[in-house]
C-alpha cells in the first residue's frame, strides 16, 4: 500500500478506530496497530480500506475480548466504562464529553457499534450492515434508536424544545 495513503488513514481514522475497538477490549491500541500492519502487508489494496480496517479491528477486538474474558473473567463493557471516550470540547455550546462517554457506555452494544462506526468512522449503513451481518434498514433503526437514547440520557432537548422519550 502507498505510504502516503497509509499515513492519511492513520491520521484520519486512528482515534475513531481506537474508539470503535474500545467497545470490546481493554487494549484497543494494540488491536488497531495490528490492523494497520495487516493492511500494510496486503499485496493488493482493498477497494474500501476504511471498511476493511473496521472489519479487521472488529474481528481482532472480539477475539481479544474473548481471550480477556477467559483470562480475567471480565465483561467487555467494563473496558468501555473505564476510559473517557472523547476529549473535552472547548466549545461551551458543545456537548459534554464526559456525559457523552457515560451515555455511550451504557448503550446496548449493537446500537453503540453502529453509532460509532457511522458518526466517527464515516461508514455507510450498507457498509455497517456488511460489517455486522444485518441489513442496512436494521442498522438505521438501531442507529436512530441509539441516538434517541443517548439524547435522553444526556438530557439534550430536541430542536422543538421537548424531550424525546425512548
Amino acid at each position: 500500500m502507498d505510504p502516503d495513503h497509509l499515513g492519511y488513514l492513520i491520521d484520519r481514522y486512528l482515534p475513531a478506530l481506537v474508539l470503535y475497538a474500545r467497545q470490546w477490549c481493554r487494549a484497543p491500541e494494540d488491536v488497531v496497530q495490528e490492523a494497520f500492519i495487516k493492511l500494510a502487508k496486503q499485496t493488493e489494496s482493498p477497494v474500501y480500506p476504511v471498511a476493511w480496517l473496521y472489519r479487521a479491528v472488529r474481528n481482532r477486538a472480539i477475539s481479544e475480548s474473548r481471550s480477556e474474558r477467559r483470562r480475567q473473567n471480565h465483561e467487555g463493557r467494563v473496558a468501555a466504562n473505564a476510559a473517557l471516550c472523547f476529549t473535552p470540547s472547548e466549545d461551551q455550546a458543545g456537548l459534554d464529553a464526559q456525559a457523552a462517554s457515560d451515555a455511550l457506555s451504557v448503550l446496548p452494544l449493537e446500537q453503540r457499534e453502529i453509532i460509532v462506526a457511522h458518526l466517527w468512522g464515516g461508514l455507510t449503513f450498507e457498509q455497517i450492515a456488511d460489517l455486522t451481518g444485518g441489513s442496512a434498514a436494521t442498522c438505521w433503526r438501531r442507529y436512530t434508536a441509539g441516538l434517541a437514547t443517548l439524547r435522553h440520557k444526556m438530557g439534550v432537548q430536541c430542536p422543538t424544545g421537548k424531550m424525546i422519550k425512548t
Partner: protein
Amino acid sequence: MSDRQDDQNVASDLTPFAEALKKLAPQPAHLSRDALLFEAGKAAGTPRLGGWAWPSTAAAFAGLSFVLGAFLLSSDPPIVQPVDRVVYVPQPAAPHATAPHIDQPEPPKVEKPSPSMERSETAKALQMRRDVYRWGIDMLPEPKTEGGRSSQDMEASRLRHWLDLPAGTYALPGTLPKKPTKNEEDDE
C-alpha cells in the same frame, strides 16, 4: 406509510444532535504515528515466507552435502576381478517362431483342378498326340492370336480336316531327287 413518516421525523429531529455528537473528538490514541508507519513498512517489507525457511533449507542441503562427501571419502575404489564363467546361451528360436506375427495379405487362392478334370485333360492331350502322329503337325491347336487371322487359320485347318488328305501332302519336296541343270553337267 405513517411509520415511515415517523421515522423520517425522528431522523430529522435527531440530525442536529448527531451533528453535535460528531463534533466530539475521540480520545487520541496512545500510539506514535511514526512508529506505527515504521512498523507497517517493516511488516510490508518482510518476506511472506517465515524467517526460518531459508536458513533451514540451507542447513538441510549443507547436511546432505556433508553426508554425501563422507560416503565418497570413506568408500574404497572398486576392485575389478575377472571371473571365468561358462555361460550357456540357449539356441535362438526359429525366426518364424520368434518373429512377431505380422498381418500380411493372403495370396490369391489357386483352385486345384479336381481329379476328374485332370483325367479329361490327360485324355485330350493323348488324343492330340495321336492326331499329330497320324495327321501331322497341323493338328496342333493354333495359338490364340488376335484379329481375324486366327479364324482364317481355323477355317483352313477345318477344311484340311474335311478333305482328309494324307499326311505330308503339303510338305516341301526338299528331300526328293531332282534333275541336274546344264551348268551342273558342264562342271562335271
